[in-house]
């Protein structure tokens, strides 16, 4: 066992779990504080350097998060290990979290003393050997980006610096600063990078002072509604009684949003730190982390972080000698979108289902009737960062009403999908086109869907809108958790609205009528429109019913569920009208409204379409051009799907 940064430096250190030292965290980095011993100091400094740059001076980092694993990081990791072993290279192979730039998954980072730290993108296991020998030979020309320049390696001038890339330059890595850098499974590394400093500072303050700092920072909940965090904490703090709870809402369910997963997988200690600060502030002694079942790695990382924190006395009794007891339990959700809603989340922990009417808000009456605060993963990560870095810097970013930064996941029709952190108030255009690279050659952005199933579509003409809670609401969308799906001209807006409605219909808990039945009727109406059976009155029904569902529903799910329909109706009425009046789908997506035909120039006469046609609408001899009989065609789209050369086209 090597000496651990968290361990005692020598026998003079009197810190134990029973009688913890108040300066434990500061002492880890700044060297022994209670006694002066150059040996201990050197030992500590040496260890920190070892953690940051590796024991051998050559560090290979492979990211291990759900997204990179899905892209094949595990195989790459194995290949790296094999390569290092078989060639007898003296190297530290470690894992890290995801950098947020998912388009280049899986990437690896090589850093050797005297060489620039190089990032290689889209690595296949077979390329690992070549990359390592090239790098060791002093050549970085095939790297994707460099973290720094040394001027010693070959090809350095050809590879851009990471911080010069538009997708990095335009970001402000505030809360995601450690993502892709720190080893998420090591508390030591987090502390070496300055972690748990915020907790250290917070525990030396009175809870009221912490609330004051968060208030000055102007932090608003990053889960979607944008409720001021300090106010929530203050209400909970002022409630009588000594049993209170804090809950971390890691039940991230919006399709297209994964910043919470990324944060919790890449830097779990930061969010845990935020949770402990929150608990100290309101005076809770028990916390829960509620994790989505579909994201098992996130639960694993968070559980590991909790275990480590417990081992070193950052959770448990008398934390850092301040007489504050707190422990955390990780709970795996069983998968229901509505559990992202506060009261439904509480119900799930209590072993019940479905949300309830608010008020009383959880801050006054929550889990088992006790005051409870529920904060989103990103909010808690912000809390930890604000406490560590001071509120001034945070408050200097953002807009007048909303301070700080926010992570956004940009997916859909863009070249560089990923999660990016920008100051609030950045325009959508900058985020989508400069950072995420736009839709690519010859394609046009039609709309941008913000906020998942409870958000709305913002048309291309409004792309210069700065992203803020208020401005987005005015545009008919919501910030939500921050998922941005870019829709290009290949998608039909009615179909998009139908997709989100089908999502909420399936996820509605079924308690209140407007959401349960109203959304179903909205969905049925949309289905009718996409099938070409729509009437013009239907648009009025959609509008009216959408308004009613929005205002009369019990919880936030129903209250925002009609947003996709209402916003598409507002900005893309012409597409709806094309569906109901001309019975045409302009984007050629709705199956029943397009006509299939076989392009004779492409058809190779294989007969696959003919075999697969359920209505015998295709005729033609083997080896000759096939033809679709439009009168018999039922527009199932099978021929379009099975054609090996793409000769079946829509028109």
């Amino acid at each position, binding site marked *: 066992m090597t000496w651990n940064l968290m361990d005692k430096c020598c026998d003079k250190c009197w810190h134990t779990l029973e009688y913890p030292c108040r300066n434990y965290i500061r002492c880890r980095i700044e060297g022994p504080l209670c006694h002066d011993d150059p040996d201990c100091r050197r030992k500590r400094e040496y260890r920190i350097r070892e953690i940051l740059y590796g024991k051998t001076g050559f560090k290979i980092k492979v990211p291990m998060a759900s997204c990179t694993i899905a892209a094949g990081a595990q195989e790459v990791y194995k290949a790296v290990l094999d390569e290092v072993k078989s060639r007898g290279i003296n190297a530290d192979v470690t894992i890290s979290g995801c950098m947020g730039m998912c388009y280049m998954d899986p990437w690896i980072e090589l850093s050797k003393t005297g060489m620039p730290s190089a990032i290689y993108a889209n690595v296949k296991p077979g390329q690992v050997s070549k990359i390592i020998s090239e790098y060791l030979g002093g050549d970085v020309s095939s790297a994707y980006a460099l973290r720094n320049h040394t001027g010693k390696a070959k090809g350095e001038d050809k590879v851009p610096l990471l911080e010069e890339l538009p997708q990095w330059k335009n970001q402000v890595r505030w809360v995601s600063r450690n993502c892709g850098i720190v080893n998420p499974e090591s508390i030591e590394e987090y502390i070496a990078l300055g972690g748990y400093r915020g907790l250290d500072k917070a525990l030396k303050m009175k809870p009221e002072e912490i609330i004051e700092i968060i208030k000055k920072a102007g932090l608003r909940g990053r889960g979607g509604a944008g409720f001021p965090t300090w106010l929530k904490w203050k209400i909970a703090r002022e409630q009588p009684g000594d049993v209170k709870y804090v809950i971390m809402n890691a039940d991230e369910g919006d399709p297209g949003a994964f910043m919470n997963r990324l944060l919790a997988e890449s830097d779990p200690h930061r969010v845990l730190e935020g949770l402990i600060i929150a608990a100290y502030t309101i005076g809770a002694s028990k916390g829960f982390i509620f994790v989505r079942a579909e994201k098992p790695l996130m639960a694993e990382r968070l559980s590991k972080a909790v275990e480590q924190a417990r081992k070193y006395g950052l959770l448990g009794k008398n934390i850092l000698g301040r007489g504050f007891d707190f422990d955390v339990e990780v709970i795996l959700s069983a998968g229901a979108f509505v559990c992202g809603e506060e009261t439904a989340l509480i119900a799930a922990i209590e072993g019940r289902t479905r949300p*309830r*009417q608010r*008020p*009383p808000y959880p801050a006054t009456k929550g889990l088992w009737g006790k005051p409870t605060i529920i904060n989103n993963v990103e909010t808690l990560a912000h809390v930890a960062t604000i406490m560590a870095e001071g509120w001034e810097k945070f408050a200097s970013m953002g807009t007048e009403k909303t301070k700080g930064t926010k992570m956004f996941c940009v997916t859909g029709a863009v070249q560089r999908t990923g999660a990016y952190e920008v100051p609030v108030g950045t325009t959508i255009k900058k985020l989508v086109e400069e950072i995420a690279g736009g839709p690519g050659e010859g394609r046009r952005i039609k709309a941008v869907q913000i906020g998942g199933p409870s958000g709305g579509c913002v048309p291309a003409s409004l792309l210069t809108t700065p992203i803020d809670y208020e401005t987005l609401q005015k545009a008919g969308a919501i910030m939500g958790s921050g998922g941005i799906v870019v829709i290009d001209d290949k998608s039909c807006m009615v179909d998009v609205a139908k997709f989100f409605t089908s999502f909420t219909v399936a996820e509605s808990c079924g*308690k*209140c*009528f*407007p959401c349960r*039945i*109203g959304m179903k*009727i909205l969905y049925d109406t949309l289905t009718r429109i996409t099938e070409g059976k729509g009437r013009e009155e239907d648009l009025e029904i959609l509008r*009216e*019913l959408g308004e*009613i569902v929005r*205002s*009369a*529903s*019990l919880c936030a799910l129903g209250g925002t569920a009609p947003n996709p329909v209402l916003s598409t109706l507002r900005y893309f009425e012409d597409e709806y009208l094309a569906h109901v009046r001309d019975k045409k789908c302009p984007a050629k997506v709705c199956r029943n409204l397009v006509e299939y035909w076989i392009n004779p120039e492409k058809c190779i006469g294989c007969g696959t379409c003919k075999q697969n046609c359920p209505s015998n609408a295709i005729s033609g001899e083997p080896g000759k051009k096939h033809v679709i009989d439009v009168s018999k065609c039922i527009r199932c789209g099978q021929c379009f799907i099975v054609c090996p050369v793409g000769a079946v086209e829509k028109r």
Partner: protein
Amino acid sequence: MVKVIVNGKEVEVSEGSVVLDAIKKTGYSVPTLCFFKGVYNEAACRMCLVELPNGKLVPSCAYPVSDGLKITTDSERLRKTRRMVLELILAVHKMKCYQCARKGGFCLLLDFAKEFGVEGIPVCAECPLHGEDCLLVKGEPCLGFLTVAGCGSPCTREGTPCFGCRGPVTREDVIESAVKRFIEHGVDLRDLHSRMKLFWSSFPQFKHVFDLVLKYEKKYMGEKK
């Protein structure tokens, strides 16, 4: 005690009570469906919505009172919302009034449907005749199952089969089950048709009802054979 202002009228209620108590104390009323004091106050039906000064709609049966709370129990918007919610509820209601335990009285849905002018509940819901006494069971061509309620069913009470003077329920599933029952009980279809024509044939908007009736007659007659 806290002071609540209901439609401009001040009223004092004890702390910890809900808005509905204050409303009742002032003598105003809001429709409630799912609320059952002390047993169920989950605010699921959304009929008892009231409006706050900031424009939010909240259910009065579950919203706690606070000092100086101002609420409005009646407005154009509220009426529209309640009506729409009721329509939604009725849209999925099974409408099997002939076998409902509430038949002949205390059907809240029926009362509200009358109040808000939502059509869709058949005369059967009001008709006090049960089981063997039902005119349809006796084989008489009673249109009660197909006709919009609200008249108080004076004819069927007196033993006269319903003529459908209030117009038909136009929902397809109701028509289907009605036709099914007509055929089950061996009602003379020609008699039935002439009865339907008596009041409905002069309205072109009811034409599709006839079409549907004929369609399902064909279907169930075929099945019977």
